[in-house]
């Protein structure tokens, strides 16, 4: 589905069903150098189990037009504008990695409009090492390979994503390369990682969040270390769920466990 948000066309995947704003809405927000397709199994499940679904492509990512927005705060405003454009009054927000920060900030900006918040593969602050930022700027393909390796905990996560026979490392690398290549104006990898690195409003936003919050963390996450969520979890009074064996790419490495965690979180 295409919407016009802040003057630009925005793509949202609706889970294989027509979008119905009257149903309880779940919004999925992807992380750095990703797009909506990291959510498709979960989006389809929720869309076929009594929800309406909006899995977004953020501005300047994959199918969404417009320049990439420069900070988490602007992205949160864009997300809230997208909900307006879709005619959604209230929604549950589910974000992964950079997307989890956008969801947090949006939930803090418009508390009455957010029914549940689920932060997947998250940490706060989400600092990125100077070395990785430099590699992302100077050699983004090399940085993609590094981050892709860090993001997977196993060479054999089952039942694989989006289905059997998919090689997760290859899928992660190909998607990052595609999203990078699709944005010709700027180095989107460096941009997205800088957005994560710079975000400093997390605890302030957490103080304004009113809805129940769940953190879903990969036990072996090397990108966003689960230990770096304690202060945030406290500020949000959040429940934390650790997915055994999973790394940062939880949607691909542990789709069933993540579904169960989100079913509980959004109940």
């Amino acid at each position, binding site marked *: 589905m295409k919407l016009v948000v802040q003057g630009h066309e925005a793509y949202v995947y609706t889970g294989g069903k027509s979008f119905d704003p009257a149903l309880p809405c779940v919004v999925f927000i992807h992380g750095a150098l990703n*797009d909506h397709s990291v959510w498709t199994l979960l989006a389809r499940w929720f869309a076929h189990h009594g929800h309406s679904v909006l899995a977004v492509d953020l501005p300047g990512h994959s199918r969404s037009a417009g320049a990439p927005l420069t900070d988490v705060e602007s992205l949160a405003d864009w997300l809230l504008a997208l909900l307006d454009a879709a005619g959604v009054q209230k929604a549950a927000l589910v974000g992964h990695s950079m997307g989890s920060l956008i969801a947090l900030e949006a939930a803090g900006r418009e508390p009455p409009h957010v029914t549940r918040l689920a932060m997947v593969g998250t940490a706060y602050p989400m600092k990125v090492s100077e070395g990785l930022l430099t590699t992302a700027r100077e050699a983004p393909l090399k940085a993609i*390979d590094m981050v892709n390796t860090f993001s997977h905990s196993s060479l054999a996560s089952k039942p694989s994503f989006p289905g059997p*026979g998919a090689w997760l490392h290859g899928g992660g690398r190909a998607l990052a390369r595609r999203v990078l290549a699709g944005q010709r104006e700027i180095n989107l990898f460096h941009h997205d990682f800088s957005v994560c690195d710079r975000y400093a409003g997390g605890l302030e936003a957490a103080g304004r969040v009113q809805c129940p919050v769940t953190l879903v963390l990969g036990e072996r996450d090397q990108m966003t270390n689960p230990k770096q969520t304690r202060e945030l979890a406290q500020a949000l009074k959040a429940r934390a769920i650790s997915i055994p064996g999973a790394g940062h790419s939880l949607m691909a490495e542990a789709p069933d466990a993540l579904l169960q965690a989100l079913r509980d979180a959004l109940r």
Partner: protein
Amino acid sequence: MCMAGYSDPGFDTLALHAGAAPDPATGARAVPIHLTTSFVFENSDHAASLFNMERSGHVYSRISNPTNAVLEERVAALEGGVGAIATASGQAALHLAIATLAGAGSHIVASSALYGGSHNLLYYTLSRFGIETTFVKPRDIDAWRAAIRPNTRLLFGETLGNPGLDVLDISTVAAIAHEHGLPLLVDSTFTTPYLMRPFEHGADLVYHSATKFLSGHGTVVGGVLVDSGQFDWEASGRFPELTTPYEGFHGMVFSEESTVGAFLLRARREGLRDFGACMSPHTAWLVLQGIETLPLRMERHVANTRKIVQFLAGHAMVSGVGYPELQSHPDHALAQKLLPRGCGSVFSFDLKGSRRQGQAFIEALRLFSHLANVGDCRSLVIHPASTTHFRMDDAALAQAGIGPGTIRLSIGLEDAADLIDDLKRALKAAEKAQ
């Protein structure tokens, strides 16, 4: 397996570990063979979720199977792709690729230096179903470009062509394909990912006859089709099969479901489902056993081949050897660039003399097995003029690039000295048969 490195493991490690971990139910270290047609659902909702692609998992072994999935992931890992589909044969893999992208009224541009079975499929069989193919000499780059039409859906060639081991200039042909919004499909059977990874040179889809080097022991028939995930089907605009709603699967738009895996989704959800040319899990297991030693075997295949090529090239009864590592081969320079690890172990040479001398040569061999296959761990031989092309007169043979004394060898893993002794004996027998 926990990974803490800065990059993915190397080729040899992936050949052993990609896609497989100790079985969580039994602790079995080797990959279990899941010889079952179907898989029990947890409940009705789980069943519906699997059928509707809301959850990942196995339903029926024609569509997917846990043993096959390990093979698929492993080959995808070795090729650097996003995933793969195991098929009943290499021919089934080729058909699945074409059937996913083309239909009646479509057109393919293919190298003329193809395995005979692939040529038959394109020239005779698919034309009966409305898919037309233009064949071009693989070295004629202008011909590739000139053959493309508005209804072309695919460019197709072999990494090493048949029978002359024409080296496909993948990056150049891929660039032509991409200029026209088309993917390049490559048959990589002769080279395997150990010798070359076509995706790194711009190919979009790769398939193997796993019957050959991947399984490596001449025991099974199978194929694997791999997607690089690099081709942008939406940007191309030529593939509504992947970018518009498919009524055969609840209006699914495959390119929206998976930005980089749309091709494989449709191939599995339509081609494998409907044509049904799936691989047996037992076959998948045997191919996996082969792949675990692929790096070791390919190294030995190439080492033996180099010794035998050198021997034959210097023999008085041999008029020519067609191996791209020789400077006399027309693609020598390209082979040096694309295939630094070697040009495989299948090649042809020309025996001086008549068809009868060719037959005498074959019949005198003791270690080489006379049969129609390649890529076995044992050395193999065939004399095309008296077998695969026996109906042709000498003029027709010449047109096909085959002489009355052309012999094709597939070099195995025996002691090279024993193979050379065997060849010496047979060459002497051929000389006497004059």
